[in-house]
């Protein structure tokens, strides 16, 4: 943007037109995206090119960072005064971004058509305190992926419906010598671990907070961590899971080294791509299992939204760009790595074709999406929980003690 201003100024001075306003002032937007998962970088560039073609007076500079850098980069740019007009944000950040005035309230810009057309669950991604802070863009949850080939060889007829069953099936696979450690998770000291944990918390009917105070150390929250530790100690879970991120899980699954893996939507089509994967055509996907008597399926809300920052000098153009990126037409066109936010898209053969199994799982999973707590102190809470998970897995502390400490360190 600075470059554009300089160029304009220099041009103006040399032409002796300093006092003549520019007739075709070009607006440049800076947008921050994620360099992994969901829509690929190429997809985002293609979408943006289409937008630029339709709006020749707006230019969009794209920047891609890994998920791990998205939050800090957004906040830092805000603190330094310059930065982005449009940012991608995770479902866990609106509370903090709204409190600290990082994003602008766009409630008045959400049309009735949008309200009616978008899946109700998707809106929770961008809402805080009854206000809208952007549009949902990536609708996502973790699914249970399984290797059909391995299950068949083990004589297992159907993928697991409960977490207990998952353990039992993994044991059969291990006992038959098909795989040493059949289950892969992303339990690295990162947000990925919290997403797996949340999936289990939802299965066990737990709560993160009650009346604003930590409650994950009791009931379902504790059962969830106990399940993780048991699965790890039993040797059914790949022990390297505690340093895996989602991409590591994908590589292990695509290499045929996992019978079961918990991961986001994007893995479905990537694992079926012969360029990347050795398990093409063997990829099964179902909603994450439930717990007998408590839940049928489980799911974490891992959706992300696009918002306009409070420092943007071009909020109208920024919103125009966001509406384009989240429009049903754009989303349907790129539905292979990320499913649309629009309800009617799920009945559109152009979207469902070739991924019927994923759509079937999505219908159940997306309806069960469980949110991570909306609190401005989310980063602290998450960091404390990440530590609790790792300490329990490493046996440094019991799940009870670890979660009690996390509750104390959560800042709440």
């Amino acid at each position: 943007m600075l470059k554009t201003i300089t160029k304009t100024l220099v041009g103006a001075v040399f032409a002796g037109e300093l006092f003549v306003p520019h007739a075709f002032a070009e607006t440049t937007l800076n947008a921050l995206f994620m360099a992994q998962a969901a829509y690929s970088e190429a997809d985002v560039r293609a979408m943006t090119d289409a937008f630029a073609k339709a709006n020749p007076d707006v230019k969009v500079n794209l920047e891609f960072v890994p998920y791990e850098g998205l939050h800090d980069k957004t906040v830092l740019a805000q603190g330094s005064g310059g930065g982005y007009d449009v940012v991608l944000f995770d479902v866990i950040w609106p509370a903090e971004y709204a409190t600290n005035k990082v994003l602008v309230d766009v409630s008045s810009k959400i049309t009735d058509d949008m309200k009616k057309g978008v899946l109700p669950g998707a809106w929770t991604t961008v809402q805080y305190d009854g206000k809208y802070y952007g549009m949902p863009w990536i609708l996502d949850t973790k699914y249970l992926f399984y290797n059909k080939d391995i299950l068949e060889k083990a004589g297992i007829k159907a993928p697991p419906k409960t977490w207990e069953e998952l353990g039992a099936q993994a044991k059969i696979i291990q006992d038959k010598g098909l795989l040493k450690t059949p289950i892969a998770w992303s339990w690295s000291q990162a947000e990925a671990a919290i997403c797996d944990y949340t999936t289990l918390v939802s299965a066990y009917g737990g709560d993160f907070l009650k009346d604003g105070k930590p409650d994950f150390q009791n009931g379902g929250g504790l059962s969830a961590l106990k399940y993780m530790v048991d699965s790890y100690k039993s040797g059914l879970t790949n022990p390297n899971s505690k340093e895996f991120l989602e991409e590591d899980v994908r590589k292990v699954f695509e290499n045929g080294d996992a019978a079961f893996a918990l991961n986001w939507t994007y893995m479905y089509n990537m694992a079926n791509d012969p360029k990347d994967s050795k398990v093409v055509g063997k990829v099964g996907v179902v909603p994450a299992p439930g717990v007998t008597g408590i839940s049928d399926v489980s799911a974490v809300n891992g959706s992300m939204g696009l918002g306009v920052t409070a420092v943007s000098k071009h909020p109208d153009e920024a919103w125009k760009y966001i509406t384009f990126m989240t429009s049903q037409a754009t989303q349907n066109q790129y539905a292979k790595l990320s499913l649309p936010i629009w309800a009617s898209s799920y009945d559109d053969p152009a979207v469902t074709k070739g991924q019927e199994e994923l759509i079937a799982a999505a219908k159940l999973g997306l309806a069960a999406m469980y949110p991570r707590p909306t609190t401005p102190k989310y980063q602290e809470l998450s960091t404390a929980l990440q530590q609790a998970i790792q300490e329990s897995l490493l046996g440094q502390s019991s799940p009870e003690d670890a979660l009690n400490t996390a509750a104390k360190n959560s800042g709440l």
Partner: protein
Amino acid sequence: MSGTWMTTRAWLLMLPLLVVMVAVIGWPLVDTINLSFTDAKLVGTGGNYVGFDNYTNMLSSSNFSRTLVTTTLFAVISVAAEMVIGVLAALLLNQQFHGRAVLRALMILPWALPTVVNATLWRLIYNPEYGALNAALTQLHLIDSYRSWLGEPGTALAALIVADCWKNFPLVALIALAALQAVPRDITAASLVDGAGPFNRFRFVILPYLAGPLMVALVLRTIEAFKVFDIIWVMTRGGPANSTRTLSILVYQEAFSFQRAGSGASLALIVTLLVTVLAVAYAALVRKTAGSAA
């Protein structure tokens, strides 16, 4: 008269530099000190003054003491290893042999690589499923199954130290090599005639020439190692279970992830103070070493 003019002229000539230094070092430092006495958030309003609360809270937290131990372990072991390996490499490269020039150029490569590239490379080497280290050790029958080097608290810090050494020993080697070239040939020749063995020749003839430059390398590397951030952030993000969290990572989390700018500033100043104390102590040591060598 002329002396006063000289002094005035010297100050005048330094003025632009002084202005720049005050602007880029002085002001941020003052601002950070001011910030460290407030409960300011990273974004939003300035916050209220809370006196020494940030300092007392930070210094008494178990996070701080644990992180300080981790940082010290990392710094001491990696710098010691880098010094030893660096000097050995310099002694080797100071020999006359075919292809020496190429080897010298190659050796600088790890140091010239950006740290993030270096860290990503080592992450691949340590990969618990498909990493080169696991493959090599299994083939040599040193381990019977693949290990999770960055996933176990017992090995994660050691694995990071190895990666850091690989990146930074060339700097030490380069400084030592330059110093070795300055050792007069007649003196080493004379020591040979006098019948000094390799160890004594190194200890009493060569080392005095190396001492000064090595102290400089030691100071540089210690300060850098104490502030280590990027290689650890890329490889483990402080995990597993915070076993590789260093002071700089704690500052980053406090100030940016949790957005407690005031508390982060106080911690940053504590780190600055620690590094300054180290630097001053070393500087005194350098003066002493240089004095005794002369």
